């Protein structure tokens, strides 16, 4: 049996500095940054006070008052991005068997902002030891268990096939798309609406990353606060947003004359099984994920045109990741452009993996590699070609995108033109 090949035929993105695919790509290809002082709430008591925020007014994006009240901000992002993706795909989902359309949505921290708000309301700002349930919002259960994100997207697009939320922390956005690919390959669905969403810029999230000094302390220079691979990097900058895709089987996409953005050609996840926040410096598990993903795509390291890095901008990650590339790609680690779009849009935890898949696919579409903004000072531990500051025109037919996160999660995905020659 020939395995079904799965391709991306629709894209929706909602990211800081760019709502919709067009604005998103304009931001990335211009090398501008969307990081700024936090405006969502008063961040003055926090150590890190910078984030990449999305200027999102849900009523301008087709959500009804009832939907806005019911859904967490992250769920709203997901639904808006899903609608854009479905419209972009040109698929008439209503004309398909709804049982054959599934949903897989990633999130790292779920409805954390709604839970925070609910806690404040029900505890009278922490004054009550036991919360007063009569002051809690009626939709609290759907924030409590963020499976609701998949339900909301499914309702928005009319899907009744397999549906789930994938929540592997900071690799959720890669792993959710990979899950969707599995379902189409094995025949459990013909179309998958998949991606990830997160809205983690909340006091609780900020406070816990403050406590471990994972987020940047570069508060005085917000637009230059996210500095992946730079010697002066001081941690990541929180972001928010969503990216959602329509996935379908290659032959059926071709039959209907769809725009085929890319094939999801290979994927693997591995656990470093080492520490919840620490990484083994050698990057071996991430390297293995990369190697297995390339094998599945029938590609060699030499076939890669671009590496879309995790590049969070923490001291530990960027060195770990660079080591993993050298292990997995050998000499091609030095010859392939590598960049981190987190330098521009921050790190939106679980959703950023999907946003980076979108960036990778758009790089293929435009043959332009987005840059690593703010990279001005070389770090001897990070000695690859990170495409500093300015986007680069570059023939891009195959891309590796990776994620790495708390809990030891390491994921790698290979995106490629379906008509590429294979190893």
């Amino acid at each position, binding site marked *: *049996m020939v395995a079904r090949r799965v391709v991306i035929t629709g894209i929706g993105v909602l990211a800081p500095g760019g709502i919709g695919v067009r604005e998103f790509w304009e931001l990335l290809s211009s090398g501008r940054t969307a990081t700024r002082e936090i405006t969502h709430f008063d961040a003055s*008591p926090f150590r890190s006070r910078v984030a990449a925020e999305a200027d999102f007014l849900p009523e301008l994006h087709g959500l009804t008052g009832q939907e806005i009240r019911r859904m967490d901000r992250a769920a709203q992002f997901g639904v808006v991005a899903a609608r854009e993706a479905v419209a972009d795909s040109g698929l008439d989902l209503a004309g398909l068997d709804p*049982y054959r359309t*599934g*949903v897989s949505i990633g999130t*790292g921290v*779920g409805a954390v902002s709604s*839970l925070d708000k*609910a*806690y404040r309301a029900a*505890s009278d*700002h*922490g*004054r009550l*030891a*036991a*919360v*007063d*349930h009569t002051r809690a919002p009626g*939709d*609290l259960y759907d*924030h*409590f*268990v*963020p*499976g609701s994100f*998949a339900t909301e997207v499914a*309702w928005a697009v009319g899907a*009744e*096939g*397999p*549906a*789930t*939320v*994938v*929540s*592997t*922390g900071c690799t959720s956005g890669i*792993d959710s798309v990979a899950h969707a690919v*599995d379902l189409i390959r*094995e025949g*459990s669905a013909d179309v998958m609406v998949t991606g990830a969403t997160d809205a983690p810029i909340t*006091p*609780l999230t900020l*406070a*816990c*990353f*403050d406590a471990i000094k994972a987020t940047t302390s570069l508060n005085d220079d917000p637009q230059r606060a996210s500095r992946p691979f730079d010697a002066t990097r001081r941690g990541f900058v929180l972001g928010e947003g969503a990216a959602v895709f329509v996935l379908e089987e290659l032959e059926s996409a071709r039959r209907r004359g769809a725009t085929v953005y890319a094939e999801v050609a290979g994927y693997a*996840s*591995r*656990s*470093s*099984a080492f*520490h*919840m*926040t620490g990484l083994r410096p050698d990057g071996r598990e991430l390297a293995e994920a990369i190697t297995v993903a390339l094998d599945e795509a029938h590609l060699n390291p030499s076939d890669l045109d671009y590496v879309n890095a995790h590049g969070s901008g923490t001291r530990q990650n960027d060195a770990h990741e660079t080591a993993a590339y050298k292990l997995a790609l050998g000499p091609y680690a030095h010859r392939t452009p590598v960049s981190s779009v987190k330098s521009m849009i921050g790190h939106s935890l679980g959703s950023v993996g999907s946003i980076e898949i979108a960036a990778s696919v758009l790089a293929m579409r435009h043959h332009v590699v987005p840059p690593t903004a703010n990279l001005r000072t070389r770090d001897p531990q990070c000695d690859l070609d990170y495409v500093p500051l300015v986007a680069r025109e570059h023939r891009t037919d195959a891309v590796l995108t990776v994620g790495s*996160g*708390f*809990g030891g*999660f390491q994921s790698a995905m290979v995106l490629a033109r379906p008509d590429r020659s294979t190893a």
Partner: protein
Amino acid sequence: MSARTLVTGIGVAAPSGLGVEDFWAATRIGKNAIGPVTRFDASSYPSRLAGEIHGFEPGEHLPGRLVPQTDRVTQLALVATDCAFEDAGLAPGDLHPCDMGVVTAAGSGGFEFGENELRKLWRQGPKHVSAYQSFAWFYAVNTGQIAVRNDLRGPTGVLVGDQAGGLDALAQARRRLRKGSRLIATGGFDASVCSLGWAAHLAGGHMSTSHEPERAYLPFDEAASGYVPGEGGALIILEDEESAAARGARNVYAEFAGYGATLDPRPGSGREPGLRRAVETALADAGCHPAEVDVVFADGAGVPRLDREEAEAITAVFGPLGVPVTAPKTTTGRIGAGAAPVDVVSAVLAMREGLIPPTTNVEPSPAYDIDLVAVRPRTASVRTALVLARGRGGFNSAVVLRALD
């Protein structure tokens, strides 16, 4: 691709028993484990019953440094995982760490830990929030901690789909095995018997307000009036058949033979709920005729509308009174992501003993044409079992387990 996926180890942390032996001793006779909430002061809430795990001292089972870093749900998950690996008889070195992975389902994550940190944040300020909050609450915590503790460096996964997620995790584990892993630790856990968790359950609108432990959670009973939350879950070791044979696995409980999942249509659509299609898909995946199924472990929502939907789906596939149905979770309450993995444990133990555990406390309503195994266990040859799980938001999942010859 065609190699079978086998259940070769089980571990359980349930209100009815911590460890398989105690759990099954209680479950096989339908011993009730629902009681008044003790983990927080629930006196001000209309619902005051829970299925709690009593007498669990994490320090007796886990290294001291792990205890302050972890929510109760993770502590329970780690202990159940230890039990499952012991049951699987896996000796160090039997399998390479890269050949073993972990896929779990979560519902609300380390929620009690999160509530405590929210309290510190708003009472005392951001500098009082624990560093451990950065990984103790999120939904991936159990998969991560299980991987670290057991040196599992293969593929990982975390799924959230309310109760149904517990079966979805097992199915994803099977996919990982089919892609070349040799062993996946899988299952699901939930534990949110805390004040904010309670408010969430109450907001859901389906919680029982009965104060009688034997009368509060009565799926398929005329008196059904909601559910009681429980805590815990189960860890299942799934192995590729060849790999299990090669290492001489000592316990082979059953084959994980089939799986299907759907999502209900948007409310008000007038379309049929998705459970029947999920069951049919799982049976087809297992290559199994409905007549071969010896027992159905029902989701048992305890809410009349949902009980009716489930009974109708079962009847549509198996015919009126066509198959024994049971919901042993009446002893524990509904454990979120942990519920269905616990039912999988019950199902494989039912096969082993030849006994269907009862749906304790329930007097079956004549309104449903299902053969509910109520009150008393039933002796029966159980070769094939169907486990159902439904989640808030419309998730439907079904798994077929089959005894090995």
